[in-house]
């Protein structure tokens, strides 16, 4: 394990400062004693306790950098005891060699008092380091969560602006400009509307079901130019449902899956049908294709699109939103999205 020596040094210096503060307080209460004694005791106690605790926790690696449960408490108790026993021995040795004990021999501090001081100081310093460590950890966690969210948004954008789709569309456009300018213009308009919606979707907005179906038409028109007679499609939106709000481009990954995994493997192509209907208080949106079915595509192939639709549904509607995928071998796939109708 790599040891972060800089942070260890910082901890040591902070510990030393705290020890000096403790011995300063002792001096205030016992001003007639030589100052070196309490300083030596305090530093020896503190440094040993620090070393035991700060290096000891390396033996119990965890995400937070602090041993979990009783191990954490045990380490602190061990550190304080070691600091007390070894530290007192070292302090005693230094005082005797250098003659720092009071000459009249009046007061050797009570064993209980020094233990109490070491314990209190140890707990305070440990708590200080612990909370500092914890807030650093929480900050790291927050940063990671933020990065995760932006990554998900980027990935959504990436799938909707799939480079293969983009460059093939541009290649078709390039051909049409020379051969059929009005059709090129139409295609460009579809593309502009689709790109605009894609950017809106990555910001997580909602729009009307009418707008959703218009954007699906844009996408399908772009694909129809590319695929020629291999792609036929039907969009069925009852007028009374046109105003219902729906997350922007919610159905687009499903239509894309239908093309990529349903129609692409089939040389003759097929038909895609998108239908909206009301079932009681529930809105039902269905994307069906007449393609290959999921016979060969395992969950991983369709994974991101589906996972992303499921996630958006869960965020907006909780347990009231659902997605179901029904695949028959060689008989197409149906994806069914349901969530509550807005009154």
């Amino acid at each position: 394990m790599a040891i972060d020596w800089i942070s260890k040094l910082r901890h040591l210096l902070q510990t030393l400062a705290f020890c000096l503060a403790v011995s300063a307080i002792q001096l205030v209460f016992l001003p007639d004693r030589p100052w070196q004694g309490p300083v030596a005791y305090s530093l020896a106690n503190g440094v040993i306790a620090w070393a035991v605790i700060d290096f000891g926790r390396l033996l119990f690696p965890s995400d937070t950098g602090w041993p979990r449960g009783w191990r954490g408490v045990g380490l602190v108790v061990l550190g304080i005891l070691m600091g007390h026993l070894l530290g007192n021995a070292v302090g005693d040795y230094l005082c005797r060699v250098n003659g720092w004990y009071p000459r009249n021999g009046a007061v050797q501090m009570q064993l209980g008092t020094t233990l109490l001081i070491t314990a209190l100081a140890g707990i305070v310093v440990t708590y200080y380091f612990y909370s500092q460590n914890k807030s650093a950890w929480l900050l790291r966690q927050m940063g990671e969560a933020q990065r995760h969210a932006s990554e998900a948004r980027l990935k959504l954008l990436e799938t909707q602006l799939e480079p293969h789709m983009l460059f093939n569309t541009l290649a078709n456009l390039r051909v049409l400009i020379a051969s059929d300018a009005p059709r090129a213009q139409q295609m460009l308009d579809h593309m502009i509307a689709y790109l605009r919606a894609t950017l809106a979707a990555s910001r997580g907005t909602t729009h009307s079901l009418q707008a959703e179906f218009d954007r699906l038409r844009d996408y399908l028109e772009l694909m129809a130019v590319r695929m020629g007679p291999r792609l036929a499609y039907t969009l069925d939106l009852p007028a009374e449902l046109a105003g219902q709000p729906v997350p922007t481009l919610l159905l687009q990954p499903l239509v894309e899956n239908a093309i990529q995994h349903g129609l692409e493997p089939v040389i003759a192509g097929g038909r895609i049908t998108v239908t909206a209907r009301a079932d009681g208080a529930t809105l039902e949106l269905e994307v069906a294709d007449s393609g290959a079915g999921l016979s060969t595509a395992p969950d991983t192939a369709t994974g991101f699109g589906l996972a992303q639709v499921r996630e958006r549904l869960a965020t907006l509607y909780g347990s009231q939103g659902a997605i179901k995928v029904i695949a028959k071998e060689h008989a197409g796939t149906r994806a069914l999205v349901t969530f509550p109708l807005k009154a």
Partner: protein
Amino acid sequence: MSPDSPTALIAEDEPLLAQALAAELARAWPQLRILASVGDGASAVVQALALRPEVLFFDIRMPGQGGLDAAADLAEAWPDGTAFPALVFVTAYDQYAVQAFEAQALDYLLKPVQPARLERTVARVQALLAERATDASGGAATLEQLRLLVAQAQPAAAAAPLRVIQASVGSSIRMVPIDEVLAFETADNYVRVLTAGHAYLIRTPLKDLLPQLEGGVFWQVHRGTVVRAGAIDSVLRDEAGKLSLVVRGRSEKFAVSRLHAGLFRAM
């Protein structure tokens, strides 16, 4: 147009792009005759074998079989004694493939096709055809390039190699340690996992399995066959020049395809 003018086949599933490529080629290489234009990989193989063009333009993503697989199939089926066509791949965006092309010196075109870039490709193909006219051995090099290309165009290997194959046997899952596996063999929609004395069926396609196998331990010897290199006992050549190999612990013979025959040369 003279009958011995160069000939080409275009395989591209998007009709507008196929027309456009033909039109651009007519400008950049007026002598080139386009024999056929097809929309999927399987038709490309059939038509190429029937028409024997000298140049192939293959889109990488096509319905059913893609351009890389079609090229590999075509290489298997291509008759001995005739030079393999000059191969140009066309793609809108395939990172892995483009990197592989760079390495293998087979030419490729990015869509939308730019006239200046197409002219460079035409010049390269013309040079290749001229070289072949004077040197009959051409073709072997193309096969070798193609083999490396197909191998390289696979996505990068998985971080952790597969340790255990989970095969369902009736209602239970049998855990087969990878060290016991001698070969993988495609059978219809399944892959047969062969150990000494046993065979299991799994549904994971060979294509998805390959990147999860530890590099160098298993060799692909055929489009549908991967064998444990250390278990290969001997390689045999029949009268027609076709290779097959025997694996220790299995009684059957495994065919070695022409594309992978380069693996087996005496040292």
